[in-house]
């Protein structure tokens, strides 16, 4: 019967088979081999979005580099909103985690003497980004996934879609998921649950993110009563391909690529990002931070110095002077993508690019060990917000973040599970409830008054208008109203597909519900932050206001389902807020 029956019990359940989730699973197995750990993922682990990361993963390795400097770059990159204790822990542990991945077989690019090679990256003062050509995420994920196969004690639920956390009395006891192959709605109990569901780029119409990045983890936590943090901070990557939104990695600029406006002029020099030099200069010009470069684009567009295409304005990324040999050695995937999707060759042609939604700084609020707001609940990776990224993430910090905090969350979840008791009986009733909700609300509703794709498109348009690179209070309020309406309409969605087998329309409907919740949180949080900081730029409050807003904002769910925003102090240890200076 499709009644949400409890089909299995594990000690630790990991939701998500991306970098963060798999790292957490191994951490559990290593912490206590007697624990029974399982990974639940809506796609096969190697399909997770980590696979598309291109540029690299930061970790201090070079002799001329220091932990202090990586810490400082990350803090100033975060516009001082990152928690400094978390950043310290992160920077200290990142190199070790990256080395561990090396031991697990990741094919990192090397120097001639066999040591790890590092490249420059935006906002970083030293070369410290480890890379595997320009398929870093792909190689990291596959090496990690293949390594987890070695741990026979890790059970996998592939293509199971998690719809709800089972919570009793402030404690998490497991989850409910749809087994996509059979359509069965089933409950799995656990003593600890780690959310590693990745990001939510699909809130926006134009994103580098994959189709599966629908903020499920954030929505699951939010609905279970755990707070989300800093949801207003959405990173735009300056160089996405028009139409598809496919990412052209920052590594192109680290290797020496230039951004040109329609006059062939390196326009970043007009935006306080330093002076153009023929070879790339760290923390300057094209190697400035993403928020500032994306903002410069908007100004160029306003001044009519961009080029028009059917898919919006673009500027050009120029790699021609790098030569075929370097491009083939270090950026082969970029060449492949350009040839395939734009039918141009970066060796001889300019690449049209525009800013594109790329990464969520915000997410499930956790402490430095990944503990989220409820007992037994942990979160890591892009779905979580520890926060090391603050108001703006530095490129190449998020892959190591997945490893460092995935491992920490895994260890903490393991420890918690060792001491915890089995799930109480009430959760079975909750699971049955959830099964009934899905069956009734989504699958049995005839006639179908609304459908998934219309509402999704309207939501995405709303978010683009109200939460773009530049925002105003007015736009966000309007957007929030629209989202309320869409939430109401979404209640009338019916799934036309009545088959239980691999019902992707049902998945779409469940994802849409998550997207809407996450979008609402973004706007609710954004409206409250009356300042401009990092990726949150308000034309009605153009400057940073440390007095009032050097704080995190937590969004929790009110009893009526609407988001409520509270403040939480930022942890500042040794680096008092200062000015973000690039190129000087």
């Amino acid at each position, binding site marked *: *019967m*499709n*009644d949400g029956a409890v089909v299995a019990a594990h000690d630790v359940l990991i939701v998500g088979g991306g970098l963060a989730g798999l790292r957490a699973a191994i951490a559990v197995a290593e912490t206590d081999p007697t624990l029974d750990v399982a990974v639940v993922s809506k796609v096969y682990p190697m399909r997770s979005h980590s696979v598309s990361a291109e540029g690299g993963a930061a970790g201090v390795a070079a002799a001329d580099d220091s932990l202090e400097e990586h810490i400082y770059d990350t803090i100033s990159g975060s516009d001082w909103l990152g928690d400094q204790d978390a950043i310290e822990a992160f920077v200290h542990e990142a190199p070790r985690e990256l080395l561990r991945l090396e031991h697990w077989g990741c094919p990192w690019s090397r120097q001639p003497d066999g040591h790890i090679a590092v490249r420059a990256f935006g906002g970083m003062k030293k070369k410290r980004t480890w890379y595997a050509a320009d398929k870093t995420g792909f190689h990291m994920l596959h090496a990690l996934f293949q390594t987890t196969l070695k741990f026979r004690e890790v059970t996998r639920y592939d293509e199971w879609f998690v719809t709800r956390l089972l919570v009793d009395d402030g404690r998490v006891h497991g989850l409910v998921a749809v087994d996509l*192959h*059979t*359509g*069965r709605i089933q409950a799995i109990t656990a003593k600890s649950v780690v959310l590693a569901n990745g990001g939510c780029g699909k809130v926006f119409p134009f994103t580098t993110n994959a189709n599966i990045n629908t903020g499920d983890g954030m929505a699951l936590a939010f609905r279970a009563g755990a707070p989300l943090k800093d949801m207003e901070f959405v990173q735009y990557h300056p160089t996405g391909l028009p139409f598809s939104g496919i990412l052209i990695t920052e590594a192109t600029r680290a290797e020496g690529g230039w951004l040109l406006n329609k006059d062939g002029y390196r326009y970043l020099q007009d935006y306080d990002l330093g002076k153009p030099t023929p070879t790339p200069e760290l923390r300057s010009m094209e190697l400035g931070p993403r928020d500032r470069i994306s903002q410069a684009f908007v100004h160029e567009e306003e001044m009519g110095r961009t080029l028009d295409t059917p898919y919006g304005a673009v500027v050009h990324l120029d790699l021609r002077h790098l030569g075929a040999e370097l491009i083939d050695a270090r950026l082969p995937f970029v060449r492949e993508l350009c040839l395939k999707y734009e039918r141009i060759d970066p060796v001889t042609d300019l690449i049209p690019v525009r800013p594109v939604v790329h990464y969520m700084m915000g997410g499930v609020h956790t402490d430095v060990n990944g503990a989220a707001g409820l007992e037994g609940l942990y979160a890591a990776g892009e779905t979580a917000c520890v926060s090391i990224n603050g108001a703006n993430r530095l490129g190449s910090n998020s892959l190591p973040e997945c490893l460092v905090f995935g491992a920490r969350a895994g260890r903490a979840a393991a420890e918690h599970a060792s001491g915890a008791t089995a799930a109480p009986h009430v959760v079975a009733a909750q699971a049955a409830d959830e*099964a009934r909700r899905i*069956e009734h609300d989504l*699958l*049995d509703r005839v006639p179908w008054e609304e459908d998934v794709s219309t509402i999704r498109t309207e939501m995405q348009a709303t978010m683009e208008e109200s939460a773009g690179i530049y925002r105003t209070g007015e736009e966000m309020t309007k957007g929030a109203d629209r989202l309320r309406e869409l939430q109401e309409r979404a209640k009338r969605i019916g799934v036309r597909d*009545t*088959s*239980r*087998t691999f019902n992707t329309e049902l998945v779409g409907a469940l994802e849409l519900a998550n997207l809407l919740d996450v979008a609402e949180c973004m706007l609710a949080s954004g409206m409250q932050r009356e300042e401009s900081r990092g990726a949150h730029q308000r034309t009605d409050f153009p400057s940073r206001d440390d007095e009032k807003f050097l704080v995190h904002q937590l969004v929790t769910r009110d009893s009526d389902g609407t988001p409520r925003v509270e403040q939480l102090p930022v942890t500042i240890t040794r680096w008092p807020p200062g000015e973000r200076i690039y190129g000087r």
Partner: protein
Amino acid sequence: MTGEAMERSATDTDLHYRRTPPVFWWTRKPSYFVFVMRELSSLFIAWLVLYLLLFVRAVGRGETAYADFLDWAASPWLVVLNVVAFAFVVLHTVTWFSLTPQAMVLQVGGRRVPPRAIIGAQYAALAVVSAFVLWLVTR
């Protein structure tokens, strides 16, 4: 949950649709067809070995047997068979040579020998062997 829909739900892998390739699967794509032809060359190779053995036997049996054999070998059906067999042998040689570099990595002085060089070397060997055989039998 409505009972009826439930009955019909896929419960297991036994509802998966399994497709088995038809016997003549290799007629569906040119590349499959070439593959099967390549594999069929084996029959003709076996035939040619037999034929050459018969030839040798005839030579061993004396001058008349040899002449008779040559006559027999010129009979139309045998000529047709041998022309076909020869074509298959050529197919075998060409495909075998072109696949070798894929199956074998040769290192010379720490460097990988490029596929073209391997293919070239095989044709060179073919030429030398052919010339030698020709010289040996017609000397």
